[in-house]
Structure formats: structure tokens, C-alpha cells
């Protein structure tokens, strides 16, 4: 885990923002703090007030009430001093179109007092880190959305801020670029940079952020680590087994047998999914985070350096074909297949062995195993409701 020492570098205290000619507060009494070397996620539905909060913290908007402090500087009292410590990647592309990509970085650095020679060196290094060196001297209009986004993050880093604000940094980016960005953010955290980010890709962000604040209507609904949020709000872990029972075996009896395993709170039959994830009705605690080997593999890659070993191990098992004994049965179009969901008290990985033993004893074939875990998105939906804004 990152070092999170020293006093908070971002302090938000009862922050209020009401835009002129509106009758509700866009930000309505928000409070939180961010420590050095911490990645803080600010999640919320459209119009929740995330960008407004970032706007105030980065001195682009004036607060109506409350206090916001960045690196010990009150952003309302001394915005110019606060800007020396922070950098922002806004939600929209605000690159300087009169300059080339490289000049965007060099000039940005000089706006922050970096000498030109040093600014050029940093620009070259950052262009390389973000894979933009080849296109560094072209016209900026020729940049795709993803390249512009990378360039904006690179620009934000040229003056080596102590606090970095990112408003939806991975919006509309391809997986490669998202991986690149998450990786860069981790490196920054290692170096003690505090990061505040907003995003709607919260399941992905959940593997990177240290703490999450969920806001709606400008108010903080909850604030905790992603793990605690998921555990506390959505309930327990899930193990979904897709099996083909032996001919003559009673599906309900099979289900009941699995339900008697120690550590299983409940076993239930669920509809065999046609869509692997997402399309589950009824909300509740039923989110499946890492779906199948592909999803879990991606997850394992994202969780590089200490994530969730259970998921990784399962993915490895599935990937190695150890669980694919039902290959023949799968060939029959899935007829007779059964999906059993086990609600668990502990780690799904420890239960997998006993479950497979039960199934083998009854000559049932295992077709697929999914580690079901309620995701941050489920927590989010539970807190903010299903209605689009």
C-alpha cells in the first residue's frame, strides 16, 4: 500500500456552490480530505457536482460557502499560490490549438516557472512516457480524443504538482490507453502525489483508488475504501457454478448438496446467463465483477502488485482448462445445464475445491465458474438509484 503520511494535502470543509440564476446548490456541504500519495475517487451520477467540486479546488470556480485548502493554501483566498501546487486535467479538451503538442507541454511548464531548457527535457520525457513522441510536432487538431487526453495528462505533469485533479480521465478511451493511464497514476502515487479523480468507470477505478466518496446532488453519500464499501453495503461474495448434472440426478438435490458445504450461506438456482455480465435483473447484491477467465485476467493485470489473489487463482484455474471437463456437454448446446449461485461467507477460492468434490462425486460436469463479487457499481446503484439523471 502507498505511503500516506503527512498532513492532508486537500481539505474540503462544508463546501457549497450555487451557480448564479439557479435555485439549488450544485455542491451542497461537501467535506473530505486527501492525503499525500493517496488516490481519491469522487464518483457520482451525471450532474452530481463532481466537476464543480474539481473546479473550485482548482480555483476555476469561486465557492459560495465553505472552505477548500490545497497544500495548506486556501484556494479562495490565494488562488495563485494554490495553482503552484496543483494540476488539473479537465473533462473537456482545452489544449492550446495555437501550439504544437510539444509546445503545449513546454509552455505549460514555463507558465509554472520551469526554465526553458528543463521544460524541453521534461516535455520530451513525458511525450515518451505517454507514447506521443512520434506525433509531438504535428498540428494538435490532428489528434484523436485519446491522444489529446494523454497529452493533457502529460501536460499536467510537466510542473510536477503535489496534487493532481483528473476529471473523467479515461472517458471514451480504448483499453490500452486506459491501462497506460492507470499505470501512470500508480507511479505518481508511489512518488507521493495526491490524486483526485472522477470517473464513471468505477469498477475499473476501484482497483486503483484508495478511497471513494460517492456524491449525489452535491452531497456526500458515503466515503470509504472500495473494499469496505463493497463489503459493507452490498453483502457477501458469490460463487456461480454452471454445471451439467449426471443423467437422472435431481438438480434441486444437487443444489441442496452444495448448500450444505461449510461456508455456504445459501445456494440457489439462477437462470443460465446468455449475456455473461450486466444483464442481471433485480439489483441487490448480484453483481459479477470478474467474469470468466478474460475478465478476471484483465482484473489480475490491473491489480498488479497486490490486488485479490483469490480472483487471480480462479482465473488461472479456469484458464488452464482444469474446470473445463464439461467440454463435451457444452457441445450439446447447453441443454440440461444448471447454474447454481452460492452465497459465501469467505473467500470463494477456498470453497472451490469442496464444491468440485461434491460435483465430481455426483458425476456432474463443471462448465464454468464465475467468481461473483458485488462491485462498486452495485454499491453505487444501491446508493444513487436506477433513475438516469
Amino acid at each position, binding site marked *: 500500500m502507498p505511503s500516506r503520511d503527512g498532513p492532508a494535502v486537500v481539505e474540503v470543509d462544508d463546501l457549497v456552490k450555487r451557480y448564479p440564476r439557479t435555485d439549488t446548490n450544485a455542491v451542497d456541504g461537501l467535506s473530505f480530505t486527501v492525503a499525500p500519495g493517496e488516490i481519491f475517487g469522487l464518483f457520482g451520477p451525471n450532474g452530481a457536482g463532481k466537476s464543480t467540486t474539481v473546479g473550485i479546488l482548482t480555483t476555476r470556480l469561486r465557492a459560495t460557502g465553505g472552505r477548500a485548502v490545497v497544500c495548506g493554501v486556501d484556494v479562495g483566498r490565494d488562488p495563485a499560490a494554490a495553482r*503552484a501546487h496543483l494540476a488539473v486535467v479537465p473533462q473537456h479538451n*482545452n*489544449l*492550446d490549438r495555437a501550439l504544437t503538442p510539444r509546445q503545449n507541454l513546454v509552455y505549460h511548464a514555463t*507558465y509554472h516557472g520551469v526554465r526553458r531548457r528543463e521544460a524541453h527535457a521534461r516535455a520530451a520525457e513525458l511525450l515518451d512516457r505517454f507514447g506521443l513522441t512520434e506525433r509531438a510536432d504535428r498540428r494538435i487538431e490532428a489528434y484523436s480524443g485519446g491522444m489529446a487526453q494523454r497529452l493533457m495528462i502529460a501536460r499536467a505533469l510537466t*510542473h510536477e504538482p503535489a496534487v493532481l485533479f483528473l476529471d473523467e480521465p479515461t472517458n471514451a478511451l480504448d483499453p490500452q490507453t486506459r*491501462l497506460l493511464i492507470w*499505470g501512470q497514476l500508480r507511479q505518481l502515487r508511489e*512518488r507521493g502525489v495526491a490524486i483526485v479523480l472522477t470517473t464513471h468507470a468505477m469498477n475499473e477505478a476501484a482497483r486503483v483508488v484508495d478511497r471513494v466518496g460517492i456524491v449525489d446532488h452535491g452531497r456526500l453519500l458515503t466515503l470509504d475504501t472500495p473494499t469496505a464499501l463493497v463489503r459493507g453495503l452490498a453483502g457477501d461474495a458469490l460463487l456461480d457454478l454452471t454445471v451439467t448434472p449426471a443423467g437422472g440426478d435431481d438438480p434441486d438435490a444437487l443444489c441442496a448438496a452444495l448448500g450444505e458445504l461449510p461456508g455456504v450461506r445459501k445456494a440457489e438456482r439462477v437462470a443460465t446467463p446468455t449475456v455473461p455480465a450486466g444483464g442481471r435483473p433485480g439489483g441487490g447484491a448480484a453483481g459479477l465483477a470478474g467474469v470468466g477467465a478474460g475478465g478476471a485476467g484483465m482484473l489480475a493485470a490491473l491489480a498488479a502488485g497486490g490486488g485479490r489473489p483469490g480472483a487471480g487463482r480462479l482465473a488461472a484455474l479456469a484458464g488452464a482448462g482444469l474446470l473445463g471437463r464439461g467440454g463435451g456437454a457444452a457441445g450439446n448446446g447447453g441443454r440440461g445445464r444448471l447454474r447454481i449461485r452460492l452465497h459465501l461467507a469467505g473467500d470463494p477460492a477456498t470453497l472451490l475445491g469442496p464444491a468440485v468434490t461434491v460435483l465430481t462425486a455426483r458425476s456432474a460436469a463443471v462448465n464454468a465458474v464465475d467468481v461473483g463479487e458485488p462491485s462498486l457499481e452495485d454499491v453505487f446503484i444501491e446508493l444513487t438509484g436506477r433513475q438516469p439523471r
Partner: protein
Amino acid sequence: MTALDTPTPLRPTATPPSRPGTGRVFAAVLRRDLMVTGRELWVILVQVGLTPLFMLFVFDTVLGSQGLVGRGFADVFLPGIIALAALTTALQSVALPLVKEFGFTMEIEDRLMAPLPTGYVAIGKLVIATIRGLLAAVLIYPLGALMVGSAPWRPAGLPLAFVVALLGAWIGGAIGMSLATTLPVQRINVTFSVILTPIIWTGCIHYPWPRLSSVPWYQVVTALNPMTYVSEGVRGALLPGVPHLPAWVCLTVLTGVAVVLTWVSVRCFTRRAIQ
């Protein structure tokens, strides 16, 4: 390059950067605009030179050859044209880019995020506008002289003409910045015509102000236009023989107007920048 790169050994960032000096940051912001201006030099020449030079051509060469205007007219007119170039170039060269930079893309945001009081970014814009206005005035002088074949030449008056043109350019920049940061984008073009046209035609470019005593109400109207004092100041400096407003009146009025408009325009800019 992958997401799983080991952290590269970079400068230790955790130590918060000390705040750079205001002068250095201001210079960096200014430098960006200077660079962009330098690249657009020929654009300025065209943008600036065309209208005044056509005016000179029509009023002097064309009408003069038809005997409709006297030979002395060019001498009275050229100082007015120099003054006009200074003020309107500055106005346009700050307003048009600002509308764009504050527009949909908010390109100016990066400079607004510099560790510098926002007012300085606004002042930087006025400095650039003034430089462009002065450049236009300096260029139009010889070009105009070439076109009409003669020009009032009085080296002793040049410093005063320069100071007056400088004040005129600064005022033009301030007007342009106030408009660009307060008007809705859709109405910018209309407003430019509505504002620029009276500035040009009531600004004593074509005639000395004292001679307007024949049309007293118009003389009052022109006295309300800062352009008048720029024209009169430059004309008085280059052609002391022609009746004109005293230099001290021009300088006093222009300085006063410049101070007020600087305050107004910086305020408009800041309000637009931080909502």
C-alpha cells in the same frame, strides 16, 4: 511502454514546488502570445493595412485627381489613419483571439491555471494588443506615405505621436477585451460593427476637431469618442500648423480613459475567467 512499468526514478516530487516569481510567470505567458503574434505578422499587415490604405487611396488619390478634395487633405488625413490603425488593430487583435480562447474549447484555461493572479493574464493580453496596435501604426506611416506620395515629416513630433498612439492602442485593447469577455459569442460580430463604425466615423480621422465648430452638436459627439484625442494628438504632433486640440488635453483625456478602461476590462476578464 506498458502499464506495469516499474516506477521510473524521477525527481522526488513529494516536496511541494515553491511558487515561482510573478515576473517570470508573467513573462512566460506573454511569450506565448508574442510567439503566436510573430507567426501571424503578415495577417496583421493585411488585417490592419487594408482599410486605412484604401481610405487613403480613395480620398486622396481618386478624389484628389478629380479635384474634389484639395491637395492638403492627405496631410491632414494621414495622421488620422495612423491613429485609427493603432486603436482598431489593438481592439481587434485582442478581441478576436479572446472570443476563441474563452469559447467552447477554453484554450486560455491553461494560462489561467498559471500561478499568477488572473488580472496579470488580462494585462498580458493588453500588452500584446498594444504592441500589435503600435506595430500597425508604425507600418502604416511609410505605407501611407508611399501611397499618397508625401507625408508630414516632423522628427521633433515623433515622440509625442508615439506616446499618443501607444495610449490609443492600449485603449483599443481594453475596449476589445471588455467586449470579448462580456458579450455572448453569437453577438460578437454584430457588436463589432456597431462599435467600430462610430469609433471610426466620429473619431476626427478625416478632419481636425476645432474646424467642427461649424457643426456644434457633432463637435460634442466627437469629443465623447476617445479616438478623437488619438487622431488630434498624432495630427498635432506631426502637423503643428493645422488647428488641433492641445497636446496636454489629448494626453490627459487619453490617460484618464486608459486608466478607467484598464480597470473595467481587467474586471470583465477576471469575472469571465473565474465564475
